[in-house]
């Protein structure tokens, strides 16, 4: 094959010129006869090019395995090449040698067994040569040399020979009947005898070689090895142990003694460490019965390695000796436990099998000792949660505890203090670390305060162990009662025995390989039958191995028991074993020294006839489902016991539960269980604390974990856990409960899911059912208060939470919105850091009204007047109005906090759609009432944006509604009026204006439409509480009458209407008022145009006024009313209206006017004449009047009249005109 390979090699493979020059020569080799070829190979071995020599070594292998006959010829060459200076050549030589050795040996065995004619000479020669090679290579393996690569292979070679020389338990021990290809090979076939090979010799040699291999790993030699050498030794040995389990007893003690505690492997490179770890793991997998007794030790060693490994990781290779102290304490404890357990077993009658053939009490003790690994197996395999990621601090603490615990009772106080001063979760970590040793600690609870807290936790955490421990405790007590006798029996003798002991183990340990050889050679064939056949036959070997094992195992145990002092100098000889025992008896309790002593006795009294009880480890192989179930069950029970303890327990269990959750296999979904647990009694069960603990723990996992997948896993567990808890809290508790808010405030971070949940609370969806709405109000409050807390306490989430609150503040449900707005406006807006954001948001929403709300909505038909809010119930409020209101509410709320914001409302008012305007009108009264007449509002009032008139009116109205407007407001309004000349703006303050300010604007008021006039009228009349009405009713009437329609440009109709409006209000414009007004009006010069009309209306309204009117009329007569044609008409109408009372007045008229009046109203004449003809009347009438009335002659008449009344006047006045003038003058003088 190699030849073929050489042929096919590409040219690049031989960069060296000389080697490429060689190539043709090598090619030639193919053509020569094989024997020549072999000879020429020999020539080439000294070639100067190393690749050539390497190839030669390879070719020898090919030739040798295919044509074994030529082997003797080429072997010297191969031997030569072994010592080649070039490492690669030497390596190849060893490889070739290894292959050849196996082939030749196999050939030899086959020939010896199946060929009758004996063995070929050449084969014999080859074998001899190979034996030479073997010794040469073995020599290389055990000598330090420069070529490490070669040495590694040499070790593998030795491994191979050991394997070849020893029977393979996995293949049939008998040779097949005929020779086949690939028949394999088992040295066990040779038992039947072989001409050349002796199975005993081979076994002895293998044992020797194994011994040499082991020797390399023992101090002091191991110290000089490089890491790679150690690795190879370790892997080789573990490979041997696995394939030849009978060597377990020899190999494992050495491997176990290499544990990182001993300074033998200084772990310069963790590789060695790791190799050891994987070797242990591999050995653990071995199911062979010889391997069973070692399981416990292996597990223990693995734990220690794992632990040390994690120390390594955390403390960067800090000296790990103190750590060992803890384990050693545990070890000593273990002894007691084991004893106890054995007692328990005995009492329970379970150990019958083990002690069956022994009546001797001592041997029962021995049996107990040998049971130890088994029991430890049980305990340690149950109590080893993976300890990963323990921090350095934890280990320091563990060491402190260990140091204190080592002092015994004296340190109890300090331990108490220490454990109480540690933070709960740190303590939990410490406990977790120590849980690996817990079952052992349990036995020491009484004497070691250290054990107390942990064991109570233990009982909570490992319910499976609970019952077991209880039993142990019982037995513990029983033992406590018994000891005096045992102590007295054993202790005094212990010292003496130790002296004896010191010499005894030596006999077994001084030269173990030799002794084994002697044994095995005496019963060579038993070795094969040991495993397969009767236990009685294997007794000797078993014992032999076990004795070695147990002896070897006392070494590390002994050292461990006494802390670090012995670890570095691992006692190889018996005297130090004795020393360690002596020390143990000094330092340990009597009972444990008894164990030690009895163990020593065990080794001392061991003879070949004492059959050790066969160790049966019942490894129950559980199905995966069963394991899962078991784990789940355990977890449930932990939770269950937590529930019971929780009320009174410390909070230490919380981190522990969280840790369990993290360490628990995900498939079993511990989180759901934890959730259930948390929620089962949130309030009383420290649900909040536990949740926090768990979330913190998960957060830590997510943040620290290097693994992409698992950190994502932790994150999503975190989020779903939190969400589930939060949702359940929401659904479980009344809205008034603060648990949810508190939880959200304190967790490590807020995932989006939780925020979504809050969002749902704060802005309940529209699709929610009606009955839920009742509740939702409180829910909203709950959500909002949580949001508020988060905004206050979680600056990093502030933005997002604010967003939630803001969204809620434009919620379509009034109730929700108002709550949110209260929060935003009252609580959040004052926070300077976010007020800008809030203002922007509100502003944006306000502006969005322009786009969102349709401009030509049916709402516009509902005229938007300032009165709109009054008639708008929420039912008939159109949807767009509601929409607009939704969007604007927040802004309005902000206006109450920041008045200057109002400016914008006014600014956009004009462009708002009708529905929006309506919404504004709905809201503005509330707003204005809240803020009052603030300076900024007054500013707006003085100078409002265009198109905001309606709004302004409403504002003014609201401001003055029921309240006394401030002077500032009034002056602002006046300013506004001065600008706009719109009388309506004054309306609001009209009642508060003084008379002299109202009168000038009164004509404008009259000029308004009737409805507005009436409003103004009522305001004026209403007046202010302090000053009374600015104008009283009579003054109003007068004011109306004094308006000069022409001059003021006001239609007369308006004035008439205004008058009519007054008359309609009879309760205000009473008889007296009218009388007063008329009384004053009649004196006006000139007389108001509407005077007579008003008079007549007054009489129409109040007939009782007729006397008063007569008086007025007579005064009008005196004022020569006939000179005002319009009024004269009215006067006459009035006279007709008021007849007969008016006759007196008519008769006062001068004759021409009377005549005029009568001619215009002929109907009057007859009754008037009749009236005048009464004697008492007639006597008072002047002649001229009588003449007009036809009661006297024309000539006659004037004289008596003139005589009667005024003679002079009658004489002087000839013309009617003159007379009238005179009368007027007279009457005016009279009045």
């Amino acid at each position: 094959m190699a030849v073929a390979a050489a042929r096919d090699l590409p040219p690049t493979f031989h960069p060296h010129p000389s080697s490429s020059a060689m190539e043709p020569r090598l090619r030639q080799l193919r053509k020569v006869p094989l024997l020549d070829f072999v000879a020429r190979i020999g020539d080439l071995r000294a070639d100067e090019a190393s690749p050539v020599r390497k190839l030669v070594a390879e070719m020898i292998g090919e030739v040798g395995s295919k044509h074994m006959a030529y082997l003797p010829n080429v072997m010297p060459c191969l031997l030569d090449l072994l010592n080649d200076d070039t490492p690669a050549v030497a390596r190849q030589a060893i490889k070739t040698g290894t292959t050849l050795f196996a082939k030749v040996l196999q050939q030899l065995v086959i020939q010896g067994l199946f060929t009758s004619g004996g063995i070929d000479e050449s084969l014999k020669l080859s074998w001899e040569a190979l034996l030479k090679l073997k010794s040469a290579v073995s020599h290389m393996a055990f000598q330090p040399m420069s070529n490490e690569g070669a040495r590694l292979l040499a070790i593998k070679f030795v491994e191979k020979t050991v394997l070849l020389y020893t029977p393979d338990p996995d293949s049939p021990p008998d040779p097949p009947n005929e020779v086949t290809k690939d028949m394999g090979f088992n040295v066990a076939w040779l038992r039947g005898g072989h001409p050349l090979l002796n199975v005993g010799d081979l076994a002895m040699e293998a044992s020797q070689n194994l011994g040499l291999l082991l020797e390399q790993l023992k101090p002091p030699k191991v110290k000089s090895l490089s890491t790679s050498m150690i690795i190879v030794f370790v892997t080789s040995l573990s490979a041997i142990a696995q394939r030849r389990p009978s060597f377990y007893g020899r190999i494992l003690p050495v491997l176990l003694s290499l544990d990182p505690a001993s300074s033998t492997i200084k772990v310069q490179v963790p590789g060695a460490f790791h190799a050891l770890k994987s070797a242990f793991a591999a050995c653990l997998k071995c199911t062979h019965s010889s391997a069973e007794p070692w399981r416990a030790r292996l597990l223990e060693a693995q734990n220690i390695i794992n632990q040390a490994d994690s120390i390594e990781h955390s403390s960067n290779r800090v000296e790990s000796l103190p750590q060992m102290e803890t384990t050693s304490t545990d070890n000593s404890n273990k002894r007691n436990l084991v004893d106890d357990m054995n007692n328990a077993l005995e009492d329970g009658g379970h150990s019958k099998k083990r002690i069956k053939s022994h009546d001797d009490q001592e041997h029962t003790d021995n049996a107990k000792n040998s049971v130890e690994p088994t029991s430890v197996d049980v305990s340690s395999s149950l109590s080893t949660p993976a300890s990963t990621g323990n921090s350095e601090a934890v280990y320091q603490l563990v060491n402190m505890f260990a140091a204190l615990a080592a002092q015994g009772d004296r340190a109890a106080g300090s331990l108490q203090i220490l454990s109480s001063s540690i933070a709960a979760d740190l303590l939990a970590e410490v406990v977790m670390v120590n849980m690996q040793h817990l079952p052992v600690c349990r036995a020491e609870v009484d004497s070691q305060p250290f054990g107390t807290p942990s064991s109570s936790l233990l009982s909570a955490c490992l319910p499976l162990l609970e019952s077991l421990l209880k039993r142990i405790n019982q037995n513990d007590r029983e033992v406590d009662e018994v000891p005096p006798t045992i102590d007295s029996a054993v202790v005094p003798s212990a010292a003496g025995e130790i002296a004896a002991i010191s010499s005894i183990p030596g006999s077994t340990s001084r030269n173990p390989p030799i002794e084994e050889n002697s044994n095995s050679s005496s019963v060579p064939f038993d070795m094969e039958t040991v495993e397969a056949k009767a236990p009685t036959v294997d007794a000797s070997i078993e014992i032999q191995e076990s004795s070695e094992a147990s002896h070897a195992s006392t070494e590390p145990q002994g050292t461990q028991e006494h802390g670090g002092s012995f670890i570095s100098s691992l006692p190889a000889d018996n005297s130090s074993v004795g020393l360690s025992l002596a020390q143990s008896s000094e330092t340990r309790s009597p009972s444990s020294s008894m164990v030690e002593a009895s163990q020593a006795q065990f080794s001392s009294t061991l003879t070949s006839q004492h059959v050790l009880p066969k160790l049966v480890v019942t490894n129950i192989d559980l199905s995966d489902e069963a394991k899962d179930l078991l784990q789940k069950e355990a977890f449930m029970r932990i939770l269950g016991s937590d529930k019971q303890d929780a009320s009174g327990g410390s909070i230490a269990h919380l981190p522990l539960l969280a840790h369990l959750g993290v360490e628990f296999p995900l498939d079993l979904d511990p989180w759901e269980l934890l959730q259930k647990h948390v929620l089962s009694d949130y309030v009383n069960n420290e649900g909040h604390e536990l949740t926090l603990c768990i979330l913190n723990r998960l957060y830590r996992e997510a943040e620290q974990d290097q693994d992409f997948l698992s950190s994502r896993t932790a994150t999503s567990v975190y989020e779903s856990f939190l969400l589930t808890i939060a949702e359940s809290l929401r659904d479980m508790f009344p809205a008034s409960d603060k648990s949810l808010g508190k939880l959200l405030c304190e967790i490590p971070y807020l995932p989006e899911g939780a925020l979504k949940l809050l969002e749902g609370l704060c802005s309940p969806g529209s699709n929610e059912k009606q009955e839920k709405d009742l509740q939702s109000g409180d829910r909203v409050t709950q959500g909002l208060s949580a949001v508020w807390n988060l905004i206050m306490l979680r600056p990093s989430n502030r933005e997002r939470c604010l967003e939630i609150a803001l969204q809620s503040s434009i919620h379509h449900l009034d109730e929700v919105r108002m709550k949110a707005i209260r929060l935003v406006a009252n609580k959040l807006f004052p926070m300077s850091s976010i007020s800008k954001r809030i203002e922007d948001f509100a502003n944006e929403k306000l502006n969005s009204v322009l786009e969102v709300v349709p401009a030509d909505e049916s709402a516009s038909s509902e005229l938007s007047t300032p009165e709109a809010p009054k008639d708008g119930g929420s039912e008939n409020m159109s949807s767009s109005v509601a929409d607009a209101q939704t969007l604007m509410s927040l802004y309005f709320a902000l206006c109450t906090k920041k008045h200057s914001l109002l400016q914008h409302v006014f600014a956009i008012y004009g462009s708002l759609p009708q529905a929006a305007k309506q919404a504004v009108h709905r809201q503005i009264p509330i707003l204005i009432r809240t803020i009052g007449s603030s300076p900024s509002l007054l500013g707006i009032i003085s100078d409002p944006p265009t198109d905001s008139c309606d709004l302004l009116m409403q504002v003014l109205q609201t401001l003055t509604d029921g309240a006394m407007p401030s002077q500032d407001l009034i002056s602002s309004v006046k300013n506004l009026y001065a600008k706009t000349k719109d009388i309506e703006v004054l309306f609001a303050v009209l009642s508060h204006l003084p008379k002299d300010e109202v009168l000038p604007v009164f004509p404008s008021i009259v000029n308004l439409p009737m409805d507005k006039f009436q409003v103004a009228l009522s305001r004026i009349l209403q007046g202010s509480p302090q000053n009374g009405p600015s104008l009283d009713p009579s003054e109003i009437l007068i004011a109306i009458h004094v308006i000069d329609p022409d001059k003021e440009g006001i239609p007369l109709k308006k004035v008439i209407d205004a008058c009519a409006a007054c008359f309609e209000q009879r309760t205000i414009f009473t008889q007296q008022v009218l009388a007063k007004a008329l009384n004053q009006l009649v004196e006006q010069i000139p007389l108001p145009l509407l005077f007579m009309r008003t008079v007549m209306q007054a009489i129409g309204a109040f007939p009782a006024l007729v006397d008063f009117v007569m008086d007025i009329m007579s005064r009008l007569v005196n004022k020569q009313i006939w000179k005002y044609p319009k009024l004269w008409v009215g006067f006459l109408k009035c006279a007709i209206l008021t007849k007969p009372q008016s006759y007196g007045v008519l008769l006062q008229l001068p004759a021409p006017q009377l005549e005029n009046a009568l001619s215009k109203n002929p109907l009057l004449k007859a009754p008037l004449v009749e009236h005048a003809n009464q004697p008492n009347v007639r006597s008072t009438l002047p002649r001229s009047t009588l003449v007009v009335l036809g009661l006297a002659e024309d000539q006659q008449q004037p004289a008596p009249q003139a005589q009667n009344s005024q003679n002079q006047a009658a004489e002087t006045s000839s013309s009617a005109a003159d007379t009238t003038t005179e009368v007027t003058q007279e009457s005016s003088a009279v009045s």
Partner: protein
Amino acid sequence: MEAKRKMRFAMVCSSNMNRSMEAHSQLGRAGLDVASYGTGTHVKLPGPSLHEPNVYEFGTPYNVIYNDLRRKDPDLYKRNGLLPMLKRNTSVKLAPQRWQDNAGDGLFDVIFSFEERVFDLIVDDMHNREQRMLKNALIINMDVKDNHEEAGVGAKLALDFCQKLEATNDDWEEIIDDLIITFEKQHKRKLTYNMAFY
């Protein structure tokens, strides 16, 4: 003077997706003879949630996975870097390979793993294989976080170390300890190694 022979390197992580592929890519670019593997039972990639990881069989071509993820949620997988990573992988080789199932790929001189669990699995697997050739293989572990940035850093370091090994001309046994100690000091990274024989 010995003939220069190229060493064969294997880069191994658990899914043959991120760390090993990054290293494969970098070593390949540097001209080393390299292959890459995963030791997991499946190729597992993060999914939309904890309970829905994306699981594929080894041997599923990278571009098939790529298309699958792109169909599922292009945004998510673009954001978490899976899609770019898969794209890169398609340019390196066809499909993820499982270490344990590819013993037939021949002998490697150096097997480089990026996670202790993976390392253990390799060592275990190597020890379980039948040893015939007496060819030793160096198995090295360097813990690298399974994320994109760290994978890049780890790959660079792996390349650095492999080039040093390549420079030893196949005679690394004597100097491996020194190499490792130097490397650890220089990069403050811990290396673990073991040896196995083919």
